[in-house]
């Protein structure tokens, strides 16, 4: 690693905050990025990674705080393309201009000869489409063009915003090696991603943010040892749930941290495997499984960002596709008490006190047609407001 003339803080953010109206995209973010290493910038979608990148490049003005590149605000950087190269948005090119002309216009800004343009086109493997309009480029080709633009000025500081998006496996491997090579040449490489798995093999240092705030700032090695705790997976017979409770209580009593898993197993931390076996034997619980595990980085990352995910998906209930009950035949779904949504065709479990003909298929008086096609999980056409059945 070469010590740069700016010391170890090539990019330095201090109390960086950005608000867009009422929404705070980045809040009080302080970190620094050092040369000679790949620094991963990790966070879920909408965590503020791109906003931070734009502020580093002086494109967006911070609401509070400041960020410097090479010791000064980016807007005051002399001959910026020779100091800092950036890939922000693969598609940020005029589609009507050829790849080569796009790079040429950028090269001319800092007196880079046209020779160098052909050189970087070769580096990213685009020489064959250099004369083609970038309009027809795939996302992967766009990423390569963006990377070429970043490399153009042979800069000391490189920023890449999600560089592997849209790349094929060969391209991903290439980007990974490129980053490492750039860092090994003593450059500062700051690369954002939402994929922990990608960063685990590319980065030397990790900065994790969620909801615009710093969650973690440590080397990948420290991150792994801090977050990948060993644990044991224990499964008791599925047929006897009470055994699971019993074992869980016994293990907790012995000082273990027990977390139930969704498939019915138990995740046990803080006890060696033989001890778990002994305790199970002592509690007279049979085991179907007892296995050693190590939490993956992905899991550690998920746990860390759990509370900071802006866009969380929910199970698709497909309720919007279901037929609304015809007026007069039934109340809306939410008025039917205690009928869990069980899926498209699953019939609701019989409810005490409900009419026996609640399910539409069981009601011979219903007209054939749309109403009869109402899935059983949707409202049953029983009307609690009509207690007396006319039949």
């Amino acid at each position: 690693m070469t010590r740069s003339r700016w010391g170890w803080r090539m990019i330095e953010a201090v109390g960086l905050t950005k608000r867009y109206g009422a929404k705070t995209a980045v809040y009080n973010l302080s970190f620094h990025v050092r040369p000679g290493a790949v620094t991963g910038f990790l966070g879920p979608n909408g965590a503020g990674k791109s906003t931070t990148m734009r502020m580093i490049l002086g494109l967006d003005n911070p609401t509070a705080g400041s960020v410097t590149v090479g010791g000064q605000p980016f807007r005051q950087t002399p001959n910026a393309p020779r100091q800092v190269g950036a890939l922000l948005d693969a598609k940020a090119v005029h589609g009507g201009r050829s790849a080569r002309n796009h790079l040429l216009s950028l090269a001319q800004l800092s007196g880079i000869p046209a020779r160098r343009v052909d050189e970087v086109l070769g580096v990213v493997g685009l020489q064959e489409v250099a004369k083609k309009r970038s309009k027809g480029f795939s996302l992967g080709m766009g990423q390569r063009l963006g990377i070429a633009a970043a490399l153009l000025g042979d800069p000391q500081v490189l920023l890449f915003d999600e560089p592997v998006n849209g790349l094929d496996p060969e391209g991903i491997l290439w980007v990974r090696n490129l980053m490492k090579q750039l860092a090994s040449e003593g450059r500062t490489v700051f690369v954002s991603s939402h994929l922990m798995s990608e960063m685990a093999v590319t980065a030397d240092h990790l900065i994790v943010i969620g909801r615009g705030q710093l969650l973690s700032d440590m080397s990948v090695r420290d991150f792994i040892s801090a977050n990948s705790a060993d644990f044991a997976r224990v499964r008791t017979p599925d047929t006897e749930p009470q055994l699971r409770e019993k074992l869980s209580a016994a293990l907790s009593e012995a000082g273990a941290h027990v977390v139930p898993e969704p498939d019915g197993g138990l995740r046990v931390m803080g006890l060696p495997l033989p001890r778990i076996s002994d305790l199970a034997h002592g509690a007279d619980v049979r085991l179907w499984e007892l296995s050693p595990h190590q939490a993956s980085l992905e899991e550690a990352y998920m746990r860390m960002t759990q509370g900071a995910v802006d866009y969380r998906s929910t199970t698709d209930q497909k309720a919007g596709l279901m037929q609304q009950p015809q007026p007069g035949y039934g109340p809306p779904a939410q008025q039917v008490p205690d009928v869990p949504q069980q899926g498209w065709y699953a019939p609701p479990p019989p409810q005490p006190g409900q009419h026996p003909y609640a399910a539409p298929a069981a009601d011979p008086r219903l007209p054939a047609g749309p109403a009869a096609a109402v899935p059983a999980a949707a409202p049953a056409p029983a009307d609690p407001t009509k207690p007396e059945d006319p039949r």
Partner: protein
Amino acid sequence: MASVPAVLQSEWTKIRTVSSTTWTLVSAFVVTVALSAALCALTKATFDDLSREEQFTFDPTLFSFSGMILGQLAMVVFGVLVVGTEYSSGMIRTSLAAVPQRATFLFSKIAVATALALVVGMATSFASFFIGQALLGEHRTTIGADNVLRAVIGGGLYMGLIALFSMAVATMLRSSILSLGILMPFFFLVSQILASVPKAKDVARYFPDQAGSKIMQVLPDAMGGNEAPYGPWGGLGIMVIWVVAALIGAYLVLKKRDA
């Protein structure tokens, strides 16, 4: 500092490597010259049908620029696209990451595009004049007559200023579609209509296009029109004030707002 010559060179590369530059400038030239020529030929054939007053104040110079009402719209498109495509493509972020000095970036881009628009504008103006005069026959004037050369050069300046004004507006609005949606109806309809409504005329004559186009008149009350309270250069001055105001607005927007 990204040096100004470097940015100028880069902007020249940008402008010459997209096809919209060619077709907007070619249409500005072709539309203006062809339409002016057609109207001149038609007028020569039907000159006797004009009213006495119109015959008396017939301004052959101004008349040979008639096609500019349509041709200037192509100039508007050129100006808007030069700036607007930076925003619509996202290229603006690449550009500003390479040239963080926003004033250098903006004024270099505008200088290159305006120079090109001026060259095309001058060519358009001179071609329209000479072809128009040739077709007007006995009603023609010559380039050596009083104020005629001023009007012809003024026509070229007018085309360049229209393009420049459009670039500034597009920088403020940061969108090609929005800019065209405002500028096209304004120059083609609103301004033209208001300029012929009795009361509104007094306001409309201070619009950039109405004021600026006075430079192309040789007779102050040409074609039965009213005499404006400013001269030809005064009119062009009013247009320049509009352009400068728009440029200041453009610079402030680019400087203050996030890219």
